[in-house]
């Protein structure tokens, strides 16, 4: 596939543009919703240094979503704030796993958030995110290559952070390990939703936007196998997609609630300048 240098060129190929826009929505919506869930931990993380670290990671990740929304803006999809805050659940393309609540309760009342679930969800997500970014460095869409290179600079530290938590809590044994293994099961039940590129995945690969879904998934599963072996854990079975396919616009009440929370101020006056 030839290189597409900018938005104007992309707009001349209808099919190419469609696949590109679809991919960008997945990338943007994934980073956006998981950084929102991360930001809900502010003030509630296990200790103060973690509070600083996690909020910094969430802020960076929100910045990654911003770049993708900006690329969508350049392709005529609307302005960045509207794309992030103004879209209804059925057009959002994030994986369902990433929209799930951190636990029971809400930020303001009785937050009984699940740290094990958070560590596992973020760790697995960051491992796969890195693989996707490495693939995007060779994307046929040049602005996406540049975005990926910039995001990788920061994402390295995010992956390192969750890698430390995951290994320490598993190796701690006892209740920590029990909770972590329960979280692994929960995350794995829907992780296929993160791995999939959705109904247009084949086209994305054909246009050289990103590697094939199967290639990326295989790469990921090999890495997971190595991590689990090194920790002497039982091997994982096939990841599943029990709650539905977010790439196809399927979502849960968790996303509806999340949107009404994070878009509350935006909705007061969508035309306000920030």
């Amino acid at each position, binding site marked *: 596939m030839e290189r597409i240098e900018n938005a104007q060129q992309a707009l001349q190929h209808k099919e190419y543009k469609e696949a590109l826009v679809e991919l960008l929505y997945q990338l943007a919506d994934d980073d956006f919703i998981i950084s929102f869930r991360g930001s809900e931990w502010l003030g509630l993380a296990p200790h103060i240094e973690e509070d*600083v670290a996690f909020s910094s990671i969430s802020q960076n990740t929100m910045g990654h979503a911003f770049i993708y929304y900006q690329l969508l803006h350049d392709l005529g999809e609307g302005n960045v704030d509207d794309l992030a805050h103004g879209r209804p659940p059925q057009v959002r393309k994030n994986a369902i796993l990433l929209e799930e609540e951190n636990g029971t309760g809400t930020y303001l009342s009785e937050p009984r958030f699940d740290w094990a679930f958070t560590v596992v969800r973020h760790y697995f997500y960051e491992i796969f995110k890195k693989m996707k970014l490495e693939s995007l460095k060779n994307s046929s869409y040049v602005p996406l290559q540049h975005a990926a290179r910039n995001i990788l600079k920061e994402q390295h*530290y995010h992956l390192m952070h969750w890698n430390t938590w995951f290994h320490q809590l598993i190796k701690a044994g006892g209740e920590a390990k029990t909770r972590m293994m329960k979280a692994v099961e929960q995350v794995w039940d829907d992780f296929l939703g993160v791995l999939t590129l959705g109904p247009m995945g084949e086209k994305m690969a054909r246009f050289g936007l990103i590697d094939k879904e199967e290639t990326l998934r295989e790469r990921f599963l090999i890495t997971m196998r190595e991590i689990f072996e090194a920790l002497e854990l039982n091997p994982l079975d096939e990841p599943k997609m029990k709650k539905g396919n977010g790439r196809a616009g399927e979502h849960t009440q968790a996303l509806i609630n999340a949107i009404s929370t994070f878009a509350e101020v935006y909705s007061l006056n969508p035309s306000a300048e920030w």
Partner: protein
Amino acid sequence: MKEEKNEMLLGAIWDALKMVTDPEIPVLSVVDLGMIHRIHEQDGEVLIEALPTFMGCPALDIIQRKIEEAVTGIPGVNTLTVRFIYDPPWTSNRVTEEGREKLKKFGIAPAPKFIEEDGTWTVDCPYCGSPFTTIENIFGPTACRSLLYCKSCRNPFEAMKPVSDIGYGNDFSNRKG
């Protein structure tokens, strides 16, 4: 003659940019930070291409506005566009030598220029110069800073977080141990 005029105008713009500081590290200008990629001028139409440091940095909008304010009034500048671009990527090695010295005086260690194979790094204490420092938290009060502690002079301090786009050695996801 025309070229000379152009040189003078570019010089004036660079001088103005040296006065535009980062609101989160007020001792550093956007020039010290290595954020200015290119200034293009033709017949009074000026285009400044700047590199964002961290993607989610909330200071970027402010920096853009401050650049516009600083450059707009310069005689010879008829129109001005300030644009953030993503190629080449900004890295911590773009901070100038002068910028590194200013950082130290401010109590922030400049980012290390080299990162070990395994992705770890160390910096010397900006107060006493001791290499016996520990990283307390990679993530600090802003996206670009980390928290450290000096075991020699027993001062907590901050360092600019090293970021690179040529990889960081081993892949952490595969780290055994």
